[in-house]
């Protein structure tokens, strides 16, 4: 049996609208009216509905990779290799982790010590700052000046004593030297004594002047 409107494109479109729920009320009423009277179309619509249910059996795979990294599926061999490497790295890293922990503990201990020292310094500084200021600053400065003057005077006195001592030493050495020179002159005059009578007398006179001048000086 075949529908007398088998070539009616508009009817086909209307049937599809009804089939997919896009028909408005007028179209739906018209199609249903036709189906009432047309067994071929009624059978066709039933078959199409059944077909749609069959088509629904083709579903997408459950594990679908997405555009984002969360959806990527690794090949099994790559996954296995990754797991192996992960386990290997974990074994190697375990010992390293322990030593790292020890080093970290030592570092923490050292940091705590430094912190305590820092804290103590801060407290000492705070205590010093909290101390009352000097009551009489001028008196303190005067005492300080007096001490400085005292030290300066003591040092000047010491230097003076040393100078006097050096001067006395020098005078003594000069006197000794003069006596030696005079003795040598006298010895020379004695040598010439018998040889130049009158000349010697003048020389003696002259030397007498020299000695007097030397004593005066």
């Amino acid at each position: 049996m075949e529908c007398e409107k088998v070539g009616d494109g508009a009817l086909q479109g209307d049937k599809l609208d009804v089939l997919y729920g896009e028909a408005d009320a007028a179209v739906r009423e018209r199609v249903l009216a036709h189906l009432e009277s047309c067994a071929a179309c009624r059978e066709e619509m039933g078959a199409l509905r059944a077909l749609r249910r069959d088509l629904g059996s083709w579903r997408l795979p459950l594990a679908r990779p997405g555009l984002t990294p969360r959806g990527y599926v690794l090949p099994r061999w790559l996954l296995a290799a990754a797991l192996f490497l992960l386990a290997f790295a974990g074994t190697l890293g375990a010992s390293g982790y322990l030593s790292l922990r020890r080093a970290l503990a030592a570092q923490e201990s050292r940091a705590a010590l430094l912190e305590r020292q820092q804290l103590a310094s801060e407290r000492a500084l705070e205590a010093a700052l909290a101390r009352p200021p000097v009551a009489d600053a001028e008196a303190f400065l005067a005492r300080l000046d007096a001490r400085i003057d005292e030290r300066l005077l003591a040092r000047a006195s010491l230097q003076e004593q040393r100078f006097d001592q050096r001067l006395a030493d020098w005078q003594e050495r000069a006197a000794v030297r003069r006596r030696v020179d005079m003795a040598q002159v006298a010895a020379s005059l004695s040598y010439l004594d018998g040889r130049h009578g009158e000349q010697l007398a003048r020389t003696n006179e002259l030397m007498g002047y020299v000695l007097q001048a030397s004593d005066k000086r």
Partner: protein
Amino acid sequence: MGRSDEELVEACQAGEASAFDVLLARWEDRIRGAAFRFLGSEDEARDVAQEAFLKAYRGLSGFKQQARFSSWLYQIATNLCRDRLRRRKTRPLVSLEALEEAGPVIAETRAGAHERLIERDLARVVRGAIEALPLEQREVVILKEYQELTFLEIAQALDVPVSTVKTRLYRGLDQLRLRLEDQGVRGTTAVPVPAP
């Protein structure tokens, strides 16, 4: 209530790049699903979806919203799938001939065999029948049956009149019905008996 596609498109055009992330999250699965049904390959479907969104992002500034964003997106993805199918120069991954060589899904002709047909086998037959359709009919069937686009949206996506969409769909469904019947599938529910 989230923003509509149109609002998100306007936001993208105004420079709010994060709005496209929302569009991506909203349509990624559907576009990839459609591409998978067109191409039969998850890897290719993922690539197509990625490429489609990239093209959409690049072309978003020139998108006038005369059609819905989803229709435009499907149009891009459909064109990408067509290109790939042309490059393949072969028939779809699972041909109807291959299915026929494997024998009818329903073994024997005894009564009740259809009830024992496991859904997986039915899905395999359905998939083979759809992939054996001409490309134009296959596109319409997939967009209508699995992507649940309206006739107008399909017409916009394929850039053809609505009447053409309906004609292709009608022929495609008819072809499918015949092919499934050839495979021993006569619908999961009883076909109405014609009135005497």
